[in-house]
Structures are given as structure tokens and as C-alpha cells.
């Protein structure tokens, strides 16, 4: 405001009237926008407070988070029972959201890149297949896609008694209409020590990789950083496993009565949500990849061809590394969109953060304002963190140019 006062004093000496002076307009525009936003927020808040008072509801309080949940959850990466507090149920949901988001964003990026490259193929058939893919899946509501995968494909898998069994007996994988079952380790007493060893190994590998990179930059010859990183990680993992008395107890799934017992499993709701959203998001990512590839100068491809590179290597070594600068910004939005779209899992019974908090918990406690505020803040935080990470990456690849 000080600048406005100072400016007005100055403006009196000049002949331009205020209403046409761009410097004055610039300031007044901002004042108007801030006033409008503040006005709307104040109106909404007072509205809510009045509504709550007239309905004689209990005042806003977040104490209910410590109450006992009172419900069970099928899909969970951490231990959860009905006597656990409500905030732990939220954590279960949040982890489920992360699980499907991370797997989904990685898969959608790979599939999308593949289709985007296909779209630009000189082969008529290949390019048209990609074109059809993009236009079909971009124009179907994602909700429909995941209901299709869940109901029409996954629920039609054979019953447990007739499950498809792969890689028996070394690594038996069971596929049935209750989920995917595979051998998995359960923690024993020494697991907690082993976990620290793994963490230490990871830190050590990271440190060595950093030193190797620095060394590579000094000498101008880059050693195989990734290889050494993996070797150290593997060495520590194996060594720790040998030293400790079996930190994990590996169990294999097996048919017992009417169910499959032992090992780990991933639910069909997870697969339905994952497949539906990956196929949807990949169509958008493909278009972003296509735009990125087209943004690379024609001369780059010509120079690479003249040097005798194969088409695959031209794409991998020359075109895609340059295209990525254009692809990353839209990819940020799609990754965020993917994370938000996982809330559609509610429709097929996947217990993600939204289904648990906005469904189960809201219904059980009736705390609409509190739960919705938490949901809003959580999704906002996830999105902001995701864009922060990707922006940092974006800045790094832009600066190295």
C-alpha cells in the first residue's frame, strides 16, 4: 500500500490521468482481485458458522480422530483391526492411495511414451493404432474404464478352486476372482534389525554413487555409477540376510478349503483401478510425448542418421532426452491428476484415502466439515509435493543444457 500512496503523490505531478496510467492500473488490478477472493472466503466461512449454529451441531473438533474405528479394512499395507483409532484408518487409506498412484504413474508413463513414439511411426498401421488408442481412451470417462476392467475382466476370472497357477512349484502365483496371490515374506523377530541394515546399505550405496559421480566429473570419464549402486545394495541385502537368522519367513500361497492361504496378495479392486487409470492417463501422456518429440529439431535426427545410428538408438539417445524438456511440465499435471483420480476407486470398492475418509469415517462419525477439510488438505499436500519434486527435476534438466 505504501507504493500506492507514494505513487499517487508522484502521479499528481504528471499529466496522465490515473484511470489510463498503466502503473496505477497494475496496482489497482491486484487490489481488486485480493478483495474479491477475501470477500468470497469470508462469506463462505460465516455461512458455514451460521449453518452449524442453527443446526445445533457439536462445534468443530478433531478429537474423534482418536476414537476407535469400529470397522475392518480388507486392503491394507499395515496392520489394522477394528479397535485401532480412526487416524490409523486414514493412514491405511493414504498408503493405499500412494500404492496405486506410484505404480500407476510409472506404468502410465512407460505405456504413454511407447504409444507416443508409435504415433509418430512412419509405419501406417502402427501410427493409426496409436491414433485410435489415444482418441478412444481420451474420450471415455475414466470411471467407465475402471468399472469395465473390474467387472468385465477381473471379476470374470476363475473361482478360487479353479485358479490359474503359474510357475508352480518354485514361485507359485495364483490368479483367481479374489485377487492375485504370490509368495511373500512375513517379518520375524530379526526383521526389525534387518530393516536398519537395508537402510544403512541404501545410504552407503547412495554415498558411493555420489563419490563415483564426483570422480567421474573430475576425470571426464563416468564410471558405471548405477551398476555400483546396485552391486552395493545387493551385497548388503544378501550379507544381512545371511548374518541374521532368517529375517523373513517366506510362505507360498496354497489352496486350503475355499480360500488361498499364505503368501501375499493384491486385490482385484487394486488391479481394476490401476488398469483403468493407467490406460486413461497413458492416452494423455502419449500426446505430451508426441509434442515433445516434434519439438526436437529435424536436423538432430538427420545428423544422427548420417552418423549411422539405428532408429531405436536415435530415439533413445538423441530425440527422447531432448523431448523430455517439453514433456515434463504436462507430465506433472497428469501425475497429479492421476493421484486425484484414484478417488474413483470408491466405485469399485478400492479402499483408498477418499473411500475411507469421505466414505466410511464420514458415515460413521457424521463429521462432514472435519473430514472434508482433511481430505482437501491431504490431496492438496500430495499434489504440491508431487509438483515440487517434478519441478525440481525439470529445473535440473533445463540447467544442464
Amino acid at each position: 500500500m505504501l507504493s500506492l500512496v507514494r505513487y499517487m503523490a508522484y502521479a499528481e505531478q504528471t499529466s496522465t490521468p490515473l484511470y489510463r496510467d498503466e502503473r496505477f492500473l497494475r496496482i489497482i488490478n491486484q487490489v481488486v482481485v485480493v478483495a474479491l477472493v477475501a470477500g468470497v472466503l469470508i462469506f463462505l466461512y460465516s455461512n458455514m458458522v451460521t449453518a452449524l449454529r442453527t443446526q445445533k451441531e457439536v462445534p468443530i473438533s478433531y478429537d474423534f480422530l482418536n476414537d476407535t474405528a469400529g470397522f475392518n479394512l480388507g486392503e491394507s499395507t499395515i496392520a489394522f483391526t477394528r479397535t485401532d483409532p480412526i487416524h490409523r484408518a486414514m493412514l491405511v487409506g493414504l498408503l493405499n492411495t500412494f500404492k496405486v498412484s506410484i505404480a500407476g504413474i510409472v506404468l502410465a508413463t512407460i505405456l504413454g511414451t511407447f504409444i507416443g513414439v508409435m504415433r509418430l511411426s512412419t509405419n501406417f498401421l502402427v501410427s493409426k493404432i496409436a491414433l485410435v488408442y489415444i482418441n478412444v481412451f481420451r474420450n471415455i470417462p475414466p470411471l467407465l474404464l475402471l468399472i469395465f476392467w473390474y467387472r468385465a475382466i477381473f471379476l470374470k476370472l476363475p473361482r478360487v478352486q479353479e485358479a490359474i497357477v503359474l510357475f508352480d512349484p518354485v514361485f507359485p502365483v495364483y490368479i483367481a476372482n479374489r485377487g492375485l496371490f504370490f509368495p511373500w515374506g512375513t517379518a520375524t523377530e530379526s526383521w526389525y534389525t534387518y530393516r536398519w541394515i537395508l537402510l544403512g546399505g541404501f545410504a552407503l550405496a547412495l554415498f558411493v554413487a555420489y563419490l563415483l559421480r564426483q570422480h567421474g566429473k573430475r576425470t571426464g570419464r563416468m564410471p558405471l555409477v548405477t551398476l555400483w549402486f546396485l552391486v552395493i545394495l545387493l551385497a548388503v541385502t544378501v550379507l544381512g540376510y545371511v548374518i541374521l537368522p532368517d529375517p523373513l519367513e517366506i510362505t507360498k500361497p496354497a489352496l486350503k478349503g475355499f480360500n488361498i492361504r499364505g503368501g501375499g496378495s493384491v486385490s482385484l479392486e487394486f488391479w481394476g483401478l490401476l488398469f483403468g487409470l493407467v490406460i486413461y492417463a497413458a492416452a494423455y501422456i502419449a500426446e505430451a510425448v508426441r509434442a515433445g518429440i516434434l519439438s526436437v529439431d529435424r536436423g538432430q535426427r538427420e545428423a544422427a542418421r548420417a552418423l549411422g545410428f539405428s532408429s531405436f538408438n536415435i530415439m533413445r539417445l538423441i530425440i527422447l532426452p531432448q523431448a523430455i524438456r517439453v514433456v515434463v511440465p504436462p507430465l506433472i499435471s497428469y501425475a497429479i491428476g492421476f493421484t486425484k483420480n484414484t478417488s474413483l476407486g470408491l466405485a469399485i470398492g478400492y479402499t483408498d484415502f477418499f473411500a475411507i475418509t469421505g466414505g466410511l469415517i464420514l458415515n460413521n462419525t457424521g463429521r462432514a466439515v472435519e473430514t472434508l477439510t482433511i481430505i482437501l488438505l491431504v490431496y492438496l499436500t500430495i499434489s504440491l509435493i508431487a509438483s515440487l519434486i517434478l519441478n525440481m527435476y525439470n529445473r535440473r534438466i533445463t540447467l544442464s543444457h
Partner: protein
Amino acid sequence: MDCNSASPLSEEPVIICRDVQKWFGNFHALKGISMEVMPQEVIVIFGPSGSGKSTFIRTINRLEEHQSGQIIVDGIELTHDVRNIERVRMETGMVFQQFNLFPHLTVMQNITYAPIYNRKWRRTEAEKVAMELLERVGIPEQAEKYPGQLSGGQQQRVAIARALAMQPKIMLFDEPTSALDPEMIKEVLDVMIELAESGMTMIVITHEMGFARAVADRLFFFDEGLVVESGTPEEIFNYPKEERTKRFLAQILSH
């Protein structure tokens, strides 16, 4: 290899073009070009823009496909056989007007990637050769920089080193100095003259007539998709036969 070859050796021609024709849609870009290039020969092609000189040089390593006629490079005929195309590209290096260096790679990586991936050299070996080439083009201190950090003349010299790293038998230059500031033209031409004197077979599109006079064995004047006239620098500069050649030379040499 370092004999100063003004006269072609008594060998087979390293490039044979017979009646090469090319259309872009309805536009007849090459109307039957024939040319034989002997090992260690330096050919300069000049002519007005749109005369097909650039299109012609690009058919030799199949950046453009010719539609009729025959092109044989180092005994390998360019057909639709992908393996032949790959082999010809390994034997020919190309330098572009716009340099076309890979901006996301360092100078060293720009030079070493092709031999590492396409000739399957070991990295250490490729880097050794790359350093020698950078010495040769006079910028060994720029090895770890990115193309964007170099001047135009330096970039073009890196582009020459990059093409030489594949140890080609033939070098093609498509207006290598046309995108350069005047004071940088000389540093690139010096490298090209040194290369010509070392016995490299070269086809150069350029309007640097000083360069042509100094190192060209033969000149070809292109106009409207045809070779109007060809001959030694002496013949072309002092006794041009065709009216069109005289007029063009008068225009580019008048100032």
C-alpha cells in the same frame, strides 16, 4: 595417405552416380545427375539456391531417397536394402550448415557416441581418438563443454570432428560456413583445407571460391537440377564455357 593428390589415383571411383533423378511431389529436383569421384579427390559444388545441390549431396548418404538412377558408394549400391544404407552411412561423414550438434551431450559425448554405439568401440578408445580429433581441429580444451557454450565456428569444428570419429572414407559438407559469422569462416575453412591435404575424399557445397581455388580438384556448377558445367578450378574460373556459369560467377565474385 598424406600425398597431396591433385590427380586422381589409378583406382576405382569411390562414388559413382549415374543419371540420379529425384522428385518432390511434382517438383523435379534432380534431373539426371552423373558424377564419378576418385579416392582423395576434392569436389566443390556451387550454384544458386534451389538448384538441387543440397538434395544431391543428401542422396549420397540416403538422407534423401533417389527415385531413379544409380548411386554406388565404396562399392555398395544404395537400394532399399537397409544394411547397405547403414554401411554407406558408416563410410560417409556429413557436416551440416546448421551444425546439428546434440545439445544435451558434451562435446566429448557428441564425438564418441557414434563410434561407441555404431562401431562398437570401447569408451576409452573412443575418447582417445576424440581427443586427437579435437587437437586436430584446434579445440581440445572444450571437450567437457556443451555445444551451447561454444561459438559457431567452434561448433562446426566439433561437428567435423564428430563426423571424422567414425573414420569415414568420404566427407560430405553441406554449406559448412554459410551460417557462420565472417571471422569464424576462416577457422572452419582452415580445418577443411588441412583435411583435404591429408587425402580425404570430399564433396563440398560452398560459395567460398578462395577455398575452391586452393583445394578443389574439380568444380561442378548446378542449376535447376542439372550439372551445367564441370571442370578444374582453372577451367571454371578462367575459361567458363556456359553463359549461365559466367553470369553466376560474375555475381558471386563481383564483390
